[in-house]
């Protein structure tokens, strides 16, 4: 299990402290699948980055299997079994897909090609391809997901895995994430996609840098829709009356 206790996060932007997360409390249990959803900029990816150790929380604790890992770096957390598939994976000039998978598999000689096949990437075509601009955004994204699957960590965080992926690959993606989930695995998917929200055990709504709701789909979905409506209404630059006339 991984718990975030009273987490707050401020990031330095242009020499200013920008508050990102506030007093956030969240537990992810082993064997369960979670979706983190919420408006753009609400702090979903920041939660993931705090778990992975990419961002250091300003206050609060990150507890993994009973141990406070809040002071550990990214490498140590990865070695303890926490993994993260980036929303925007970086590109690497000259580095072949094969090398990235080998690193994910701790330099095993036997690259797990199945993870590529599962995501519709033929290993014969892709293993020697380099992770540079010659690959499309969707290809890079699928390779990123394949890399996390090859790493096979106990805690898996997929950050908007559907972004940039075509419809056919998206169907595969949902199957792959679902089928690869195990009883000893915690899967967290940051997503806005209804199909992904439908397949998880619990949905967590993040708003304004904290958990505003959580529960199963039946409990939470109507509230999320209502909440989205409120957000649109309050954000409508033309005011309440004009919003009422908007086609939706």
């Amino acid at each position: 299990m991984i718990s975030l206790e009273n987490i707050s996060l401020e990031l330095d932007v242009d020499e200013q402290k920008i508050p990102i997360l506030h007093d956030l409390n969240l537990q992810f249990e082993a064997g369960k699948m979670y979706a983190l959803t919420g408006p753009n900029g609400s702090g979903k990816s920041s939660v993931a980055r705090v778990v992975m150790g990419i961002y250091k929380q300003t206050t609060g604790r990150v507890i993994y299997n009973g141990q406070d890992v809040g002071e550990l770096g990214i490498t140590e957390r990865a070695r303890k079994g926490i993994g993260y598939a980036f929303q925007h994976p970086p590109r690497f000039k000259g580095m072949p897909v094969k090398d990235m998978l080998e690193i994910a598999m701790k330099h095993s000689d036997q690259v797990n090609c199945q993870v590529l096949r599962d995501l519709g990437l033929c290993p014969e075509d892709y293993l020697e391809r380099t992770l540079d601009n010659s690959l499309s955004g969707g290809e890079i994204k699928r390779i990123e997901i394949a890399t996390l699957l090859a790493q096979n960590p106990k805690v898996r965080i997929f950050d908007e895995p559907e972004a940039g992926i075509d419809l056919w690959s998206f169907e595969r993606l949902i199957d792959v994430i679902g089928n690869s989930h195990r009883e000893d695995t915690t899967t967290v998917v940051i997503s806005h996609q209804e199909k992904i929200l439908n397949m998880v055990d619990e949905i967590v709504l993040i708003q304004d840098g904290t958990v505003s709701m959580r529960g199963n789909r039946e409990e939470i979905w109507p509230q999320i829709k209502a909440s989205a409506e409120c957000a649109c209404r309050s954000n409508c630059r033309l005011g309440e009356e004009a919003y009422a006339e908007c086609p939706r």
Partner: protein
Amino acid sequence: MLNALDKKLLEEVADLHGEPPGAFNIRKDGQGIERRSLEGIEINPKKDQPGIDVIVAEGKEGTVHIPVIMTETDLSDLVYNKIDIGAGANITLVAGCGIHNPGSGDAQHDGVHEIIVRKNARLIYTEKHFGEGEEGGKRVLNPKTVLVVEEGGYAELELVQIRGVDHTNRVTEVEVKAGGRLVMYERLLTDGNQTANSDIVVKLMEEESAARIVSRSVAQGSSKQSFFPRLLAYGPGRGHVECDSIIMDQATVRSVPEIWAENSEAELVHEAAIGKIAGEQLIKLMALGLTEEEAEEAIISGFLK
């Protein structure tokens, strides 16, 4: 007879494990020490100056190794090699130089390679440079490659310097004739106070000639690198120059690609970039369990692959 050190150096620069396959010439400390010619691939020592002539017959296919190793300090070796790849031949040629400088004096190798790839011939040419030593003596390597690719010929050059060379002045001059193609990869890593200069001039002489130059380098420590790749089209040729450098620590990199056309049908492109390793790249690899140092190494090694 090759000793263990010789074998290690040969492995570094020419991936050789034991006697090379095909024709070969091994030069050690200023002397040719082993040589083998084959039918259609003649290797002859020059009579008037140090070096060899490699003459490949028309249509011949095969592999040629001509590595140089240096194991003494206070030694300067200058060599002139001429390589003639006959029309229609298909040859892989592995050159390169490995220096083990055991003392505090300089060890320097200057190699001039004149290569002609005749009509419709194909040459894959690899030249790796490597240096090591314990007593602080400098390792200096100054290669000059003068290449002509004749009508319909193809030449692929892979010029690599990975660690251990204190100073290098690299000069590469290529003329590509009608229908000829050149692909050139230069990969270079410097560290400490090392310096590296690379001057490349590729001339696209006639119609349908094409060249692609890819230069990748990593500058670490306080090392200094400068690159001057020039691509000139005198006819309706096509060419692309790409210079990409990763800069680290207190290093300096200067990159000045030039394209020059004297024909309105020419199509030339150049790109140059210098930058540090992106933070997100390091984070990605650390999230897979690598330490920061391991991540840096993996990125550099991939970049220079």
